[in-house]
């Protein structure tokens, strides 16, 4: 609520099975816990995970329901180019969307859209499976560029979560941080 400084954010993360939608959701959710915030997420499992569309909902703040209602999301992380068209209806007017795609597109909706070619960046850093982290890094830079659209956490918070999760595997941690930073730096 404005003026109260109580954080209340709803973010939709969408992609297909195998891209790491759930991993990104967990990183953000754990970052929220680190910051002392309440968090609720919802995921797609089972049959839907075999390469099908994967959608997760992340709600930070005092929520009772695990799902975001259509027209209520503050932001969308789209790991697939068509995710914005597919799941844009979750966004509220003035929301942000960060989309992984190779070409620029015009967006009709009342949405601040930021486009990044995460596949190309992933190839550049020779880590083709890091598209999810690149997009997250890019989103942390892009969404925070507009003051009214700050994501509830910063780059450092996500890096701390990665360090806690990957404490036993230095190589994996280095690769993850590298991908996150590649995305972050690619925002201009």
């Amino acid at each position, binding site marked *: 609520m404005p003026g109260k400084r109580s954080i209340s954010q709803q973010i939709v993360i969408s992609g*297909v099975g*195998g891209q790491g939608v759930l991993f990104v959701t967990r990183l953000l959710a754990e970052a929220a816990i680190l910051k002392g915030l309440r968090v609720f997420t919802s995921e797609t*499992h*089972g049959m839907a995970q075999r390469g*099908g*569309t994967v959608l997760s909902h992340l709600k930070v703040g005092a929520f009772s*329901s*695990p*799902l975001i209602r259509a027209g209520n999301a503050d932001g969308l992380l789209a790991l697939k180019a068509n995710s914005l068209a597919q799941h844009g*209806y979750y966004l509220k007017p003035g929301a942000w969307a960060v989309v992984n795609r190779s070409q620029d597109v015009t967006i009709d909706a009342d949405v601040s859209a930021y486009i990044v070619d995460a596949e190309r960046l992933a190839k550049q850093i020779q880590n083709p499976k890091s598209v999810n982290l690149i997009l997250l890094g890019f989103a942390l830079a892009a969404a925070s560029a507009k003051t009214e659209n700050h994501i509830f956490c910063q780059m450092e918070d996500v890096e701390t979560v990665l360090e806690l999760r990957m404490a036993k595997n230095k190589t994996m941690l280095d690769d993850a941080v590298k991908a996150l930073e590649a995305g972050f730096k690619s925002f201009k």
Partner: protein
Amino acid sequence: MYKRKLMLGNEAIANGLMENGCTVATSYPGTPASEILGAFAALDKKGPGQRHIQWAVNEKIAFEIAYTASTAGLRTAVSMKQVGLNVASDPLMSAAYLGVKGGFVVISADDPGPHSSQTEQDSRLMAMMARIPVLDPDSPRQAKDMVKTAFELSEAFEIPVMLRPTTRVCHARQDIEPGDVLPGKWDAGFQKDPARWAATPKFRFQLHRELEKKLDAVSRHQETAPVRLNDAARSSKALVVSGVAASHAEEILKGLNLWDILPMYQVLQPFPLHRDFILHMIDTYSDILVIEETTGIIEMQLADRHRVKGKLTGSVPGVGELLPESIQKIIGEFAGIDTQAIAVPAEPGVRPTLCAGCPHRAAFFAIKKAAPKGIYPSDIGCYTLGLNLGAVDTVLCMGAAVSQAAGFYHAYKHETKRPDIVATIGDSTFFHAGVPALIDAVVQNVRFVLVILDNRTTAMTGNQPTPAMGIGACGEMLNPVDIEGLVKGCGVRFCRVGDPYYLNEFVALLKDAIQHSRENGPAVVISRRPCLIDRLREEKPGWEPMNVEVADTCDGCGYCIDHFECPALNLNQNEKQVCIDTVLCSGCGVCISVCPKKSIKEVKDAG
């Protein structure tokens, strides 16, 4: 003080079991319940390990083991998905009569939608039929708290108690503070009482009478009574909600500024519904809207058809998941306001498919080659996705591939030209319910081929071990049961093992099996190749990934795309040629044998 942890609903339930001294926990995996037992085992590893935790061959067996340990006085739990409860319904109905000693919690996870199930059935109806109490959590946090309530209720009334989470509880994550672990208590003391534990029909009548008395008392039990969520609200209308619909409704009511207007009651125990609550609602309100998933259980018990709106009156949809958008619309109509709810468009989405390199794909391709005009009964698991390849004609329930093959055989057996019948079943599903059906097929001399897709794991639900692996839920070594021996023990005379990665040899093996089945009766082919995504597996894959490329001779005919549909193969529309997605490709090399033009080739490294 513990730090808050991000817990999956199923992990929260496992924590609840751990904090309440559950000593024996059993399960058969099934979405959305699969992670409960795994999480419980993981928590136990950190503790003293004084518990029995096991994956059972099926839900009936899982139920019977946990139930019986409770009759010996221990706190126990069994977890499964809603259709698993069908398999366990035989012991469930009887256990309700006999009752328990130590607390016994039956966790049956429902899947409104359905997201990953063959039905949307409501386990609370099963609780009603069995005459046992059921608790309906609205969130991971409440699910954890309700484990405690369930054990206490079970012990207070010596009755099995059901905990019924839904997918949105099981697969939501919430920040939850873990509590102190209560060590398992090994104080088994089974007290013989044949009139109870081995009751004959005469005594069963008495037990039924006692059960009804228990239920009457449970319906007055204050600890599980419905709660009023917004005390200040005053209206002649009221909302009654339960489960995850309650959590949606709370947020919606606040968002619509109805929180201080419309009284809302949350039912924690949908059956038996508290008697005082029923009277209070009917006496107080002229209009009552009930929102619950999936059947109108609470609505049925609030039996005033003039005041109660819900599924029976058509005010709430009777099928499908109650998404918050639809609840918003329903509440708006009830309150008489326009909520401007945005309808969720039907999502085309991307259809799920078998992984690149999945051995099932190779097996299905071979089956179509060997019996192109066959009937293909199949079963429940990843391999249901053989639908995409046109190699799955029927999916009914666990184990039915074998008996459906028999049903087709008997339907056609008097015809001069019988279709070949090639059924597919996974290794875990074969153990679960395929074995009795196979014995039946041997006895009846059913002329069909059963392909057991042996990927050495229960893949779809997250790679739980099968009885063939000899590994327990906590990673302990157990006694493996060999599938070939089992098949032969059922009386099958043709039983051979093949590797579907060697596609041409595998097609030849299938043809032999089909020939045998036409003349002699059942034949079994075990298609053995471990699942590619089984992270538990430490053994070597037994094959070197190949570098595969598409030669210029590819004319883009699309045969491999249509008939093999590997996600690593894509048809490039501009160049009219197939290209390989090197990120997805596992290097199984099966597509080399699939291409009719021999345009997919292995590239050997020069070095």
